Structure formats: C-alpha cells, structure tokens
C-alpha cells in the first residue's frame, strides 16, 4: 500500500479581480509525486468561488491523511468564467486558463512520513516505532531549514538530517524528542559535536546557511 497516496492541502486566495475574472494565490499540499494537482486545485476552488460565498479573500483547508501543510507549493494565476447552474440556482466556476504553476516536492517530508509509518521492530532488532512528538518536532525543524536535508531514521529513537558536500564537509542534526545532537566535519577534517535544546530552530537554520555559504 502506498502510504503517500493522500493529501493535505491549503489554499489562500490573495488577490481576486472580478473585473477580469481572475485570481492569484498559493496552494500548499502534501501528496504523492504523481498526484493530479491540477484536478485537485479545480475541485477545491469551485466551492470557494460559488455565487453565495465569493469574496476578495478566502482561505480553505482540506486535509486527508497528513497533518501539515508543507511539501508541495503551487503558485497559480488562473482565469475563469462563472457559469449559472440552473439546477442549484448558483454560479459555478469554470477555469479556462491556468499558468505560472510551480511545483516543489519535499522529498524530506515524504521520508518523514515514511518514517512515521514504521512499526515497532522496524529494523528487526527491536527498534521502537517513532513517537508523534518526534515526528512533529522533525517536521517543525524541516520547515525552518533553507535547504532540504537527507532524512534517515535511527534505531535509538531519533531522526537524522544530513547535509554533505563532495569535499567531505558534513553537517548532521540528530533529532530526539527533547534535544538535538549537532555533528560537523569541517573543511580541515576536524570534527565538532554538541547538543542543542529542542527549541533552537533558528540556530539550526543558521548552521545550514553557514554550511552552504561560500567564504572567499
């Protein structure tokens, strides 16, 4: 069974222009790589733009399976026609054009969702299932990071984020429920390892930015 065949989606309509029958906004969702994003977009927006609740600003959230709203971002600018539905006595949206679509799929988030689905003894050596708190903590950290890490589970109740350069420089966050272990291999092959408390997301963000910052 594909654990990722589910959807969490948030749409935020930022601009609505009734004169040109167009709108602009962003949509965020978690979904499988091959999910039919566009069909989902149309399905979600139709009720938002029905006659009785059409407004200049609307937010609509639909969740199935995932609890977070990151993973895939789609920017859109769409033209549409409003058609009168005789049966229901309301206007319905018919999208006639859709463009400026950008899709960024978070492989790291999908990996965390995969880790979330692991059961007890997932490594055949008695490793525990991952707690909801650790999963949420990891997603929270992921959301603050400027670059996507590689994500792996460990058999000691932690989730590991990794960054590595071809030069051998390496940055690792091992995330536990209540603390984070930071490990680095520097350009001169020296190593640093220390602990941070669980609420120091900004420090982690700065470490990643520093890791990829070119020093002249």
């Amino acid at each position, binding site marked *: 069974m594909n654990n990722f065949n589910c959807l969490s989606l948030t749409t935020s309509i930022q601009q609505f222009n009734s004169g040109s029958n167009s709108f602009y906004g962003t949509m965020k969702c978690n979904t499988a790589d091959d999910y039919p994003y566009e069909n989902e977009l149309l399905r979600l927006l139709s009720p938002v733009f029905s006659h009785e609740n059409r407004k200049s600003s609307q937010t609509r959230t639909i969740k199935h399976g995932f609890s977070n709203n990151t993973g895939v971002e789609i920017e859109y600018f769409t033209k549409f026609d409003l058609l009168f539905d005789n049966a229901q006595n309301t206007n319905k949206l018919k999208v006639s054009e859709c463009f400026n679509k950008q899709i960024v799929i978070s492989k790291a988030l999908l*990996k965390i969702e*995969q*880790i979330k689905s*692991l059961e007890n003894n*997932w*490594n*055949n*050596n*008695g*490793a525990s299932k991952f707690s909801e708190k650790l999963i949420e903590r990891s997603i929270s950290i992921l959301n603050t990071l400027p670059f996507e890490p*590689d994500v*792996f*589970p*460990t*058999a*000691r*109740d*932690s989730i*590991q984020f*990794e960054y*590595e350069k071809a030069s051998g420089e*390496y940055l*690792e966050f*091992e995330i536990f429920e209540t603390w984070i*272990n930071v*490990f680095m*291999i520097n350009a001169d092959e020296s*190593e640093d*390892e220390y602990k941070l408390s669980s609420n120091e997301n900004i420090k982690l963000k700065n470490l990643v930015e520093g890791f990829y910052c070119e020093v002249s």
Partner: protein
Amino acid sequence: MKLVDIDEELFRRVGQNPDMWSKDDSGPTSALFKDSKGVSVNQRKNRIEDDVISFEEELHSKYTGSGMKALVSVGNEVCTEKELHVIEDTLEDNDYHALILRSNEKIDLTSGQAKHLAKKCRIVKKYY
C-alpha cells in the same frame, strides 16, 4: 565479554525499507550505525565471501519481509581507530554474531564514530 580479533571483518546488512543509503550512492548513512542495543554485525571467521553472502541473505529472508539493499563490511581495525569495542555475542542460530559498542561502558556510538564507520565501510554486494 570477549573482544573480537583485531583483524576480523564485520558484515552488516542494509535493508530496503526504510532506505538507509546515501543519495549519491556512495554507501550507507551513518544512521545505520546508531542503535541503542549496539550495532549488530556478523564476523567473517575465515569464511570465503560467497559463503558470507549466502549466510547473510538467508538470515535476511528469515527475519524480514522486504529485500536487501546491500551488504557492507568494515574491518575491526577501523572500529579500533575510533576506540569502539567489538564484542562476541553469539546467538542460538548464529555463531558469527557480534556487537559494536561505543566503549566498554557505553553502547550508543557517537555521531563521529558512526560517520567513521559509514565512510570506511566496504560495499560487498548491492541488490539494486
């Protein structure tokens, strides 16, 4: 607690799910060597490589439902470089079993020790 011979080669299986392999296909993640019960490995004990591979494949199919991603090995001398302790831990159905530990007092490897093993390990066989 009997220590494993310094010139022993230690084998560790890498499963397919979850994926514990690096993105650039260079080898396993160091997370593979982070286990609160110690890192479970099997010693070569003078066996030829084909026999080791057959043994590991048999064990894997016995205990797991998914396939193997790879079989990797690391020399005990590599463990010693980072002051790791490798102890004999024979099981009912496995005389070759051993555990890699942080020291003679602690089990969990440090991140530096785990990364060292991940970098130095040899890929014996890939299954993909």
